[in-house]
């Protein structure tokens, strides 16, 4: 026990002495939390919208006014013909445009129905889908107005059936993205820092030769490993704490669940990451190799964690792969606990998997750490 303390003390001294690293460990992640949480939004706003109005009638102008009135659209330009509009889309200056054909008003009055061209830049498929919904809604509302006018004139029309769907958004009535993203990004940052630092740590001593000096001492390998990793565990917990405070103060992120539960879970979770870091350290000879491997896994963990894109929509095999993604568990749990107030029983199935993961990972890491070659 005393021996472990000596190692812990030494590690802390080395960490705090490295002036170049301190801001990277403590300031960079928190800065990113504060800034980048604002970036992660699927909400579609400020749609750059153009139109071609070949009809130039009162109906077509009214329709355009509907778009001008909407907060989602920035109606930027009226194009003389479709050619110019399409070119503007190619340049990327507009995201969508409406093509109102000649005789639009006349045909609508005559045939009671008339098509209208809607063109959407669909490279970002999901955004295009949303834009399409907005446009359709505006046009349908406009249709209703015309219909409403008509019903006043004659009562002969039968009242249509109507099914109203009433959306109720639980836990986040205002659909605030930051509430959703802040906890998730906090998880990422805690994970990245602890994985990179622990992954580099032992291989660094290997590279500079001090590890050999340690290996000829009678120190027990479990003591050595605990002593080396504990400081990073503390750093991880510390980052989580500061991150949670920032989340509350800056983003007013709710904390509906039990804070103790979150900490208890995190304490196990960080063990998974540290075990992983140690495992990487054991199988590499240089820091460079260790970092490439850590980088490889962290990119996969981040993009397949359900943080930015939904796991449900992935193909089955990919969903199975995510079972091995520790970040996925933590992201889900931190959101459940903070935003929904889920309790121990609710998170138990996920937490038990994390615990098993921690045990397996650390056993592997300790087993593969060899004092002899």
């Amino acid at each position, binding site marked *: 026990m005393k021996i472990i303390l000596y190692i812990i003390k030494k590690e802390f001294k080395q960490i705090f002495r490295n002036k170049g690293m301190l801001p990277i460990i403590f300031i960079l992640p928190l800065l990113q939390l504060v800034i980048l949480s604002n970036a992660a939004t699927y909400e579609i706003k400020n749609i750059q919208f153009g139109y071609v109005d070949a009809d130039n009638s009162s109906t077509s102008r009214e329709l355009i006014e509907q778009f001008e009135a909407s907060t989602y659209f920035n109606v930027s330009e009226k194009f003389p013909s479709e050619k110019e509009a399409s070119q503007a889309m190619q340049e990327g200056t507009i995201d969508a445009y409406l093509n109102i054909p000649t005789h639009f008003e006349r045909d609508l009055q005559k045939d009671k129905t008339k098509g209208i061209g809607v063109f959407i830049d669909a490279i970002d498929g999901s955004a295009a889908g949303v834009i399409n919904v907005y446009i359709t809604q505006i046009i349908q509302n406009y249709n209703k107005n015309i219909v409403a006018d008509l019903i006043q004139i004659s009562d002969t029309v039968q009242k249509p059936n109507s099914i109203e769907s*009433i959306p109720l958004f639980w836990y986040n009535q205002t659909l605030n993205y930051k509430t959703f993203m802040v906890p998730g990004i906090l998880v990422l940052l805690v994970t990245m820092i602890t994985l990179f630092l622990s992954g580099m740590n032992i291989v660094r001593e290997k590279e500079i030769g001090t590890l050999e000096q340690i290996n000829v001492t009678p120190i027990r390998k479990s003591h050595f490993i605990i002593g080396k990793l504990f400081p990073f565990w503390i750093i991880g917990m510390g980052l989580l704490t500061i991150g949670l405070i920032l989340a509350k103060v800056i983003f007013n992120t709710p904390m509906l669940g039990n804070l103790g539960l979150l900490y208890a879970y995190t304490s196990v979770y960080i063990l998974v990451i540290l075990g992983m870091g140690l495992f990487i350290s054991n199988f590499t000879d240089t820091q460079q190799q260790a970092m490439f491997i850590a980088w490889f896994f962290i990119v996969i963990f981040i993009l397949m964690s359900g943080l930015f894109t939904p796991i449900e929509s992935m193909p089955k095999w990919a969903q199975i792969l995510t079972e091995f993604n520790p970040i996925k568990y933590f992201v889900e749990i931190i959101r459940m606990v903070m935003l*929904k107030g889920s309790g121990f029983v609710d998170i138990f199935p996920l937490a038990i998997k994390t615990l098993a993961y921690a045990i397996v990972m650390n056993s592997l890491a300790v087993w593969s750490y060899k004092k002899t070659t």
Partner: protein
Amino acid sequence: MKRFVGFVRKEFYHIFRDKRSLFILFGMPIAQILLFGFAITNEINNVDIAILDQANDVASKEIINKIAASKHFSIVDIIQQESSIESIFKKGKVKAVLQFENNFGNNLIKEKQANVQVLTDATDPNMASTISNYISSILKKYQQELNENISIDYQIIPQSRMVYNAELKSVYMFVPGVMTVILMLVSAMMTSISITREKEQGTMEILLVSPLKPFQVIIGKVFPYIFLSVINAVVIVLLSIFVFNVPVNGSLFLLGIESVLFIITSLALGILISTISATQQTAMMISLMGLMLPTILLSGFIFPISSMPLPLQVISNIIPAKWFIIIVKGIMLKGIGIGFVLKETLILLLMTLLFIGVSVKKYKIRLE
């Protein structure tokens, strides 16, 4: 010049001798692009939902059948009372609950008006609003079928055309992004580490006192990585074309030139990082911690930049990846020529010069 060639050759030997790193350098980007190309999508499919049917009549059954048939949803639970909603949300078992009011069908027949509540777990706002949009459109369709024989006058019918990506494939969006992130991080990381490594081991001094100019030393160190990154870029483009069927509507040659430019930008950034870090550890942490999330989040890779708050839109301009993503999407999907991406190209070029300029200045200061 001969000396320089010799030096570059030495660098190549270094890299090719370390088989493990080489494997990592080439294997990882391929593994990642394959994985992400197939797996990542921001479509919303197969969402688990529950039904609370208090009416249990013909109309509600018909609607439930329609929802069950949709690829967007899978009904995993039928619940009996409202009080269970909270617990299934808290367990995270379902993302939405569809609640039919009492006498749903009767109301529809008698009053011509009936209500369905769509309760969503809105911790994920995107998921929640998309789910309620999908459900409301399923309901609208059902409503239209009921109203088939009632004519509604004056209809403007939007005929939407999804330009550049008719089938709304996520892969069109993500392949250029993944390619950019991989090239950026691998290039910046490789150079910053390999230069600081020489610094740390003291071999940099030896190189700097050699007759080679500092500038040549740096170019010599970076040159092999340009070569490696270009190979990576070629492999990624081939995979996107042949595995993911992403079209290259524009000029492949232009795409190549732009890729080389972006690789050089990333390498220059790596050099800059190496000038400000004393140890490999610092260099790695800067290139990983400092670049990874901003490159993923502020480049338009996943989240549209135009929807971000204004300050972030401004910040996004200093992310080289943003400009390269615009270029790649433009050339591959929109099929545009150099004329349309001139601005983006110039910005990348300027960034590269800036990175190199600052690095050279920093090195000079150190040498004095």
